[in-house]
Every structure is written in C-alpha cells, then in structure tokens.
C-alpha cells in the first residue's frame, strides 16, 4: 500500500507519536511538580490510542510498502502492550520509590517504549526489526536507570546498555548475513530467496539465524542471553521491572515468532497453520535446548532469592522458558498457546509486582520473611497475591493452569520432545516451592491481628481488577481462547 494510504492504518501509532511529542512539550512547559497533568495527558493519549486501535478495520494488510503488517496477530499484541502500559502508568503515582524523581520524563519514555513495541509486533522488514528493538532498548535503558540517585539503578542501566549494545551488534551481524544472501530486507523476499538457496549456503544460514536469535533471546531474556536480567530487574524501579518483565518480552515473542515463521518458514505463509523451516534449517531442537535451559536456570536462580522482587524477576526468566517450549513446534496451536499464556502472564505477573509495590510502599519491606502475617493485616491484597502466585505456579483453578496446559499440550500433541515436556513439568514443581513459600509466610506465619491495612484505593482497585481475569479465565477460558484463535491471522504476501 502506498505511504499516503497507509496512514489510515497507522492511526494508533500516529497517536502515540503525537503523545510523545506532546509529553516532551509538557515537560518543557510545565513545572516539575505538575506530575498529575502529565499523568492525565498520558492516560488520555493511551485512551485515544485504544479507541483508534479498536476502530481499526479488521483486515490483514501490509502498510508503508510492505514495511509493517496490520493484521489480527499484531493487533492482539498491541492490546497486550496497551494494557501493560496503562496499568503501569496508573500505578506509578502511587509508587513511593518514584517520589522525588522527574515523572514527566518517566511517562514520556514509557510511551516511547510502547511505540517501539507496537512496531516490533508488526514489523515485516529487517530494518524496522532493528529500529524498533533499538527504540524499546534505549527507552528501557533510561527507565532502568531512572532513579538517578540510586547507585543500583545506575548500575542496572549501565549493564543493560552494555549487554544491549553487544546483542544488537551480534544481531545486526546476523541480519547482514541474511541480507547478503537474500538481497532484500523484506521478510517475504528474504523467504523467497532462502527457499532456493543452494546447499552450500546452509551453514551460513544457520549461523545467521543463530546470531539473530541472540538479539531476540536478549529481549525475552532467554538463557544464555539472560545475564543482564537479574541486575536490571533488581536495580530498576519496581514499576519498570514489572513492565520490562511483561511488555518487551511479549513483543520479543511476537517478533521472533513472526520472523521465524515467515522469513525462515518453508512457505512464508503463517496462515497455513503447520509449517516447517526452510530447507537446511532445523531450529526446533535448538530452541528446545534454549527452552530447557531458560526454564531451569530461571527457576534455580529464583529459588535462592529472599527478596520478593528478585524472586519474581528471576521467575520471569523461567516463564519465558515455558513459552519457548511451545515455540519449538512451529504450528498454529503453538502460536495460540504462547499468545494465550502471554495474555494470562500479563495479568498475573503485573498483579504480583503491584502487590510487591504496595507492600514496599506501606511497610518498606522487601524480604520475604518480612511479609509475615501480611495475610491477616491486608487480606484484600494478600488474597489476590495468593491467587497470582498460584497462577504463576500453574495450579488450578487459575488461568495460569489453563495456560500451562495449552503450552504442554502443544508438545504432547506433536508427539515429539517428550523430554522437554518432562523438564517443563519438573520445573513447575520447583517453582511451586518458592511461590508457595511466599504464600506460607503471608498466611501461616505470624499472628492474626485485628488491625487491617488498606492502601490507596487505586492500587487496591488495580490489583483486584487484575485478579478477575486470572480467576475467570481459569474457569471459563473460551472467550480468551476465542480471541486468540481469531487473532491467528497473519498478513501474508500473495505470491
């Protein structure tokens, strides 16, 4: 589609750009204590974006001369990003940790990251892939180091920059190899060139894919490209840790699945449902190894943690591993299972982090043992926390259980990779130990008291709201699965 006509399909992103520009102007014009106004502008902008996304015609097209796809698949992920960003922005004024820093810029960078995420979910061009990852990365670097007076936050930002630069460089090298073989940056043209590649180029193709996976793996914190994760997640403000553990991870999956399926798929058409890699590539088993490593390393690091924030941060690595497990089998069912799990993971992980922020605000606690008796002091918060933790473990009747069932059923129905399913189940058992530990401390340790603690209604409301889908989709998940199924439509170039 020509550039001018494309604008009609680009309205949500355009709204975000306008929002970014107006937030810059707001931070120039408004005094630094007028946080509220900036907050309202951001939320209003998000609302406009949501409306534009909702009224966007449900087509599958490519816009900007094949650079971006506007299809149900990308739209599904855009909703995830929208919800995640909105929740984080709403919660931010009620986060004590952020008091005293310039919130104007904080919202600005969050929105900028979200703009990058939108592009990541829909990019069909290798240069856009790189540019969007860079926008997300640079925004995240700044947000991770947002607490300028906190040396930990500085450290996390610096480490993030160094790892980010390295993995971008490696990925760019892989992309350049790919371009060298295909002579195009458009994923469909790349695919068409890769299918007819002579056999002696297959090794180069495998190297290129591996290097590109470094870039994607870095974004979803796949082991062994996860080394930045612990320090960044620990040093960053908790709201940002929550955001980074959800939104860029979802975008990384959206991007990786699309690029793997399209550029490296034997047909280039993701709608077929069941497809195989281009000749000469068998990345299934490679991803299987990465998945097993990611789950296991994430869990065994999480088990040693005493701080709730660090525990959640490490366990988010393990969750990426569970999702990668399904990515081993490249079919529609696997895509559906990953998208389903991401939607659930969004709610439960954000919820658990919000409770951590709540506890930190109210008591200044960080260590798990400090949470003693929290279940009696603030049942309205502790019970949802228990639900989130159950769901993160994957216990019925929560949505996390259903999500995990879908992930495992991909492997089981494919009849391959039994060992991986076994690793996944063992890892879930391990995760039960450390998640249940928090629940035990909250409800079983400590004395019952009559004093009950309540937080700000906005925080409580957000936490309760996130509980609803976690419980509801655990019992009646058809609507969500239906939404996922109808989102499994991809733009594909008519050959």
């Amino acid at each position, binding site marked *: 589609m020509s*550039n*001018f006509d494309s604008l009609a399909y680009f309205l949500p992103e355009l709204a975000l750009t306008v929002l970014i*520009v107006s937030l*810059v102007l707001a*931070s*120039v014009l408004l005094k630094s204590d007028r946080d509220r106004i900036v907050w309202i502008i951001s939320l209003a902008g998000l609302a406009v974006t949501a409306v534009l996304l909702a009224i966007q015609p449900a087509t599958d097209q490519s816009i900007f001369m094949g650079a971006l796809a506007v299809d149900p698949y990308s739209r599904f992920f855009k909703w995830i990003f929208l919800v995640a960003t909105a929740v984080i922005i709403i919660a931010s004024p009620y986060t004590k940790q952020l008091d005293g820093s310039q919130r104007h810029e904080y919202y600005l960078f969050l929105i900028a990251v979200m703009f990058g995420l939108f592009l990541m979910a829909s990019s069909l061009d290798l240069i856009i892939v790189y540019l969007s990852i860079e926008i997300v990365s640079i925004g995240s670097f700044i947000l991770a180091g947002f607490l300028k007076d906190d040396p930990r936050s500085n450290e996390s930002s610096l480490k993030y920059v160094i790892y980010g630069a390295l993995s971008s460089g490696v990925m760019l090298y892989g992309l350049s190899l790919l371009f060298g073989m295909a002579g195009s940056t458009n994923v469909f043209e790349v695919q068409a060139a890769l299918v007819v590649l002579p056999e002696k180029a297959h090794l180069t193709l495998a190297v290129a894919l591996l290097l590109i996976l470094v870039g994607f793996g870095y974004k979803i914190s796949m082991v062994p490209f996860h080394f930045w994760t612990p320090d960044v997640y620990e040093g960053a403000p908790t709201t940002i840790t929550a955001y980074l553990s959800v939104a860029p991870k979802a975008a990384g999956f959206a991007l990786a699945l699309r690029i793997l399926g399209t550029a490296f798929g034997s047909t280039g058409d993701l709608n077929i449902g069941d497809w195989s890699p281009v000749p000469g590539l068998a990345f299934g088993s490679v991803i299987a190894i990465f998945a097993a490593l990611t789950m296991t390393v994430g869990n065994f690091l999480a088990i040693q943690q005493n701080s709730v924030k660090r525990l959640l941060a490490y366990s988010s690595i393990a969750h990426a591993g569970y999702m990668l497990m399904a990515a081993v089998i490249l079919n529609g069912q696997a895509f559906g299972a990953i998208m389903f799990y991401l939607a659930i993971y969004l709610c439960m992980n954000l919820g658990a982090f919000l409770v951590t922020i709540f506890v930190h605000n109210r008591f200044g606690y960080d260590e798990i043992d400090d949470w003693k008796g929290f279940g009696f002091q603030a049942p309205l918060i502790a019970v949802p926390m228990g639900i989130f933790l159950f769901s993160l473990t994957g216990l019925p009747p929560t949505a996390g259980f259903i999500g995990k069932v879908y992930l495992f059923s991909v492997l089981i129905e494919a009849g391959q990779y039994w060992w991986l399913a076994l690793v996944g189940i063992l890892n879930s058992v391990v995760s039960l130990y450390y998640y249940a530990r928090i629940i035990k401390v909250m409800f079983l340790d400590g004395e019952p008291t009559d004093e009950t603690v309540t937080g700000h209604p906005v925080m409580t409301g957000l936490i309760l709201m996130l509980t609803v889908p976690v419980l509801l989709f655990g019992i009646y998940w058809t609507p969500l699965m239906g939404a996922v199924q109808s989102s499994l439509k991809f733009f594909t170039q008519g050959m």
Partner: protein
Amino acid sequence: MIGDYLPILFVFLLAAGFALGALGLTHVVGPRIKTRVKLSAYESGVDPVGPTHSRLNVRYFLIGLVFIIFDLEVVFLYPWAVIFREQAAQGPFILYEMLFFLVVLLVGYLYIWRKGVFEWE
C-alpha cells in the same frame, strides 16, 4: 570512476603532509636548548600545578551528542533536497514527510534547550 576520487586523495595527502611537515620541520630546524624551565609546560609564566588532563564537564559530551543528531538530520536532508523538485510535482506529501522528521527532532532540541543543556553557568 574510482579515478574521480583522486583529487580527494590528494587533498588528504596534502593535509596530512602539511600537518606532519610543519611539525617535523620545526623539530628539525628549530634550535633546542633543554633546561628544566624550557621543558615545563607553558602556563603563562606560572608554575603548572596538578595533572594536565582535567576531567571534562558532561556538557561537552551532551553537546557532542546533540551535534551528531543534528548532523544526521542534515545528512538526511541532503538527498531529500536533491529529489525535492522532481517529487514535489506529484503533490506536497514529500514536504510533510520531511516536516514530520524535523518536528520530532525540533521538539527534542526544544527540550534540551529549556532544560539548560546549553547553559554554561
């Protein structure tokens, strides 16, 4: 084709030759008397104190960064300007394309200006 670049090569050689030649020539021709005073750094007659390298203010770095970003903008402007006349015949869209790019960066400029990056205290 490559031959077209020969003049550039000569300019480089000339520049390098001039720089090296001027330095080398003073080395060879100039008289040298080595005393303690002669060898100390020239600080308008004051005895130099402390290390010669002082830590730069972060502002230098920021100004450098701003320079690169607007340098890039100019690099983008050049091919745009070359094809402008030809493309503008098909409508003003080409103008808006560049305007968008410029406005986004201009807003950034406004930000750093108002936040005092250019103020030198």
